[in-house]
């Protein structure tokens, strides 16, 4: 059986290799450690970042804006499956918003197969579906004074009792609700619903420092670095002892 001999050369190589391997990581640990050591001085716990790259590392995603309508000086929009009045989340719907109108102190939002009625404050009055007499395949929504109009399957329907009952009409109604361009400032306000303030810099530096920023990979990577540091220390002591002997 061949004996494994630990030579001075091999120990020097281990020391050199582990030294180079941990060098970059020690610089990283030192810099993030200094930041963490001065969290309060630098107010890192009060500062937040909403960088898309950093938010993605924390699995915080902001859905894209789908549709938006301007009603009574408020923007009604849908981001992902969440519907908003301005930046207030109100209901969820996977169907696109067809139109939105304000009448009789009620906000009506039509989707393809249902209509949502909300108070001015955003409180849900009702979700009206076809079981309650609303036509399916809604194409357009409009309002004239106290009458709500729907266009579905190329027919026009009207309701004068807050969407409780619907009837076909021959009315030549053509003032349908149309999509409106939502200003960037308003979009950012809605996006803040998903991202909150963002991630605090203290949390970010802490997760950078302890490897949590890359989840389990970070944990295993830190274990590897710990093993390298042990090898570096042991080989260093071994080399020092050998030098002292001669």
């Amino acid at each position, binding site marked *: 059986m061949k004996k494994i001999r630990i030579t001075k050369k091999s120990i020097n190589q281990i020391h050199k290799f582990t030294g180079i391997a941990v060098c970059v990581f020690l610089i990283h640990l030192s810099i993030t450690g200094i930041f963490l050591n001065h969290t309060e001085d630098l107010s890192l716990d009060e500062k937040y970042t909403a960088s898309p790259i950093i938010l993605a590392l924390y699995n915080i995603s902001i859905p894209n804006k789908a549709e938006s309508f301007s009603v009574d000086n408020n923007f009604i929009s849908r981001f992902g499956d969440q519907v908003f009045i301005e930046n207030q989340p109100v209901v969820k719907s996977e169907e696109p918003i067809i139109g939105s109108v304000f009448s009789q102190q009620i906000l009506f939002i039509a989707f393809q197969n249902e209509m949502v009625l909300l108070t001015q404050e955003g409180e849900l009055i009702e979700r009206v579906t076809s*079981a309650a007499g609303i036509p399916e395949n809604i194409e357009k929504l409009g309002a004239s004074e106290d009458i709500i109009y729907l266009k579905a399957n190329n027919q026009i329907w009207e309701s004068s009792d807050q969407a409780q009952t619907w009837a076909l009409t021959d009315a030549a109604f053509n003032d349908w609700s149309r999509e409106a361009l939502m200003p960037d400032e308003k979009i950012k306000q809605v996006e803040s619903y998903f991202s909150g303030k963002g991630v605090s810099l203290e949390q970010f530096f802490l997760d950078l420092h302890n490897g949590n920023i890359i989840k389990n990979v970070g944990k295993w990577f830190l274990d590897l670095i710990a093993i390298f540091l042990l090898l570096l220390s042991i080989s260093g002591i071994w080399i020092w002892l050998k030098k002292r002997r001669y």
Partner: protein
Amino acid sequence: MLITLLLASSLHARGIYQTDKDFLAEIYDNSPPKSKSIMLLGDLRKSVEKILGHPYASLRIRYWNKDDKTAWILEEIGKTEPITFGVVIKDSKIQMIKVLEFREIRGWEVRYPAFTKQFIGASLDKMKLDRNIDGISGATLSVWAMTSIAELSLYLDEHLKNK
């Protein structure tokens, strides 16, 4: 493989079991009446809040009434998502209760007739069901949601009669 099977079963559990329209067609022999609605205002709103332990999701509740039976399509949160229930009341007793749409990943077992048959014939006694409902392990919140909706629909049916 086990994970795939578990995932498949939870995905299978979510979804629409019966549409509102089909539910009403089944109850009223394909000829459902026009819907009516109740506004939850004042004392009625407070009573509903007492039954559920929180306000109902909407201010207006839709119902159908024909052949001395009322049908209710109501929603209640299971754990995080609303569950849609269909309830039929006749002679102040539950004639049928069903899960129409389930959106949670757990607790879908409440849809089985073996569980829902416990509610058949139940009536209201001081705003509570007149009987105990046996739970299902792992579906406690869904069982509570269905029990609350059974009590709510019986209460609303009683409210209509006393109007």
